[in-house]
């Protein structure tokens, strides 16, 4: 008898942290499991929920507006952060976008110089910038280990993020701003946790990254990382059209 593979996907604060179609990433993870016969369940975990995060195989955190980011701050820092830190140290795949990405860092420095502490899960910090960095992005990533892979998305942030020694960049920017518009880097990777400014939604247009998260989760849970290929014709067309738009900016 074949083993039925099952992955539990956690969408953190789906009601508060879902700017710019971030839920598309969760839809992509879920569908790409289902299409392969992997059973997948998505659970939303928000303020009032006391779910044990160690039961999940993939964690996702989207971006939010300032008002909402403030609303989750207490719950996130006091209740969920220790569990998330443990899950990340334990190798659980985690994807954090934009505001969620910034929250994982050491601190966020506001325009007046005040340092708002982050969760310190990733060795990076963010400084408020004067200009909003907006537009299509094309970058190149070695994350999957099978040669450079293209990553496309849309960025819209004013914070500028700088990486420390404890993390690796997710990708190198070919077109667009990335983490800060200065060092040509985009996103960060620590163990199996990935932070990035790219939305769009990100995973449907970059199926390789969705598959990397899924296979890391399978490897951790079942000790096997191979997954069946899917027909990504439409996804790659969308990636190509995003790349064309980025080239024009």
């Amino acid at each position, binding site marked *: 008898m074949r083993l039925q593979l099952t992955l539990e996907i956690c969408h953190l604060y789906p*009601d508060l942290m879902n700017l710019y179609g971030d839920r*598309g990433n969760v*839809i992509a993870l879920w569908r790409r499991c289902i299409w392969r016969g992997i059973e997948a369940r998505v659970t939303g975990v928000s303020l009032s929920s006391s779910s044990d995060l160690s039961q999940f195989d993939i964690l996702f955190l989207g971006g939010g*507006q300032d008002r909402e980011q403030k609303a989750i701050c207490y719950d996130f820092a006091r209740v969920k952060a220790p569990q998330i830190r443990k899950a990340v140290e334990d190798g659980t795949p985690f994807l954090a976008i934009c505001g969620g990405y910034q929250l994982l860092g050491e601190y966020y420095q506001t325009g007046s110089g005040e340092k708002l502490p982050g969760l310190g899960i990733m060795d990076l910090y963010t400084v408020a910038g004067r200009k909003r960095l907006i537009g299509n992005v094309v970058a190149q990533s070695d994350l999957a280990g099978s040669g450079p892979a293209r990553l496309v998305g849309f960025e819209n942030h004013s914070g500028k993020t700088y990486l420390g020694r404890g993390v690796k960049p997710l990708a190198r920017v070919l077109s667009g701003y990335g983490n800060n518009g200065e060092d040509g880097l985009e996103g960060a990777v620590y163990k199996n946790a990935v932070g990035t400014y790219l939305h769009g939604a990100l995973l449907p247009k970059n199926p390789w990254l969705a598959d990397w998260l899924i296979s890391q989760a399978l490897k951790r849970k079942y000790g096997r990382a191979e997954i069946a290929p899917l027909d990504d014709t439409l996804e790659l*067309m969308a990636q190509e059209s995003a790349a064309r*738009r980025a080239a024009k900016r």
Partner: protein
Amino acid sequence: MRLVNWLRFLVALWLGKLAGFASRTLGRGGSSLPGKLCLLVDSGSLKRLSGQLKHGSVLVTGTNGKTTTSRVMEDIFRAAGRYVIHNRSGANLLGGVTSTFVDAASLFGRVEADIGLLETDEASIPRVAQEVNPAALVVTNFFRDQLDRFGELAHTVELVRSGLPSVRPGGILVLNADDPLAVSLGRAIPPHINVVYFGLDPNVCSSNEELSPSDAFVCPSCGGGLEYTHRFYSHLGIYRCLSCGFSRPQPDFRLTAMESEGMSGSTLEVVGPEVHPFTLRTALPGLYNAYNVLAGVAAAWSLGVCEEEIRYGVQNSVPSFGRMERVSVGDKWLNIALVKNPTGFNAVLETVASGDGSEGLMLCINDNYADGTDVSWLWDVNFEILAAVRGAKPIVTSGIRAADMAVRLKYAGVDPSRIKVEPDLEKALDMALSWVETGGGLVALPTYTAMLQLREVLRRRGLVRHFRED
């Protein structure tokens, strides 16, 4: 000195008229240039022109439904025998509004019309209101557009609020009672204005969809949490703030029943103050258009139009271009509805999905500046409804981001073999029409610049006129 002012006004007017003549001759649709030039030479020209209207101006504003609501009102006022001027072309900033008057005025600056019907962008309300001193201000709703953040939406409400002191004494403010943000305008209004609310009865419809975070609503009065006892769609509903008591006001004009006939329109029952329930037949389909009709009826009634005239006017109101307008294409028909944000898109999809599924569907997504350059909002639209309801007919995706639209459909559960990607709009149109049976219809849902392109294709084929003439 008076003579100098008068001459300056005439020069401004003539310059504007000349620019209007030139752009019409060149076949350009752009209709804000004449007004801009006129104001540049004489900044008081809009005041002088609009001040001549016998019954003053009505400004129509809000995120969704401005164009349709003002069209409905135009048809009602026409039925009532009033001579109306209206910025039909949809140029709704200060320049566009002024152009409408420049065009309507005689060579010596006389304006003969009774009433000015001015669709006005929310951000232009303070300036336009200051110049025209409206007799009425109609607010349809406030939704977050694709990229707006809450701060900007609150800011938009404040912009509209700052136009209120310019409403003339005895004037009216017509507000959507079901929208907490619109209702917040009716609190602490200047004493010289009367407020008229319109809204739905709970039996008309209800929505179980989850409140999307973009509309996850806080009380506009105190910032506390709003509790809904009933929701119509998105954040429109019956609500109350648990901390400060802010609540939905009892509407003066109520939609008490609605019978939908899918894409061909609806029959509505309306009750007003001192008015028996009366039924209206409208060719404008969908719940969102029921709101638009109700807003128009409430405003027209409050401005003295009678029931017979309202019924006749609404009956004759047909959708305008890009607002579910129906165009004949040979032995088939084409319905076009502009999509610009998740709320509007969801409302249109629900109307499409409520039909028998015999129509074709084409989704045209551009990402030019006027459309919004970020297409991620497509992931906040519930395309899942298409996978569940519609039969096996292909869905065509088109426009610059046709492939993004196709991916969204695939992940919504639409069978990929049903998704046809054709970025070229004209080819996509022909392809989609080829799958429609004789006598059947195609629904096209374009973003703004895709809509203009689609219109251009239809104009070339002689199916619609240029929008300046329509």
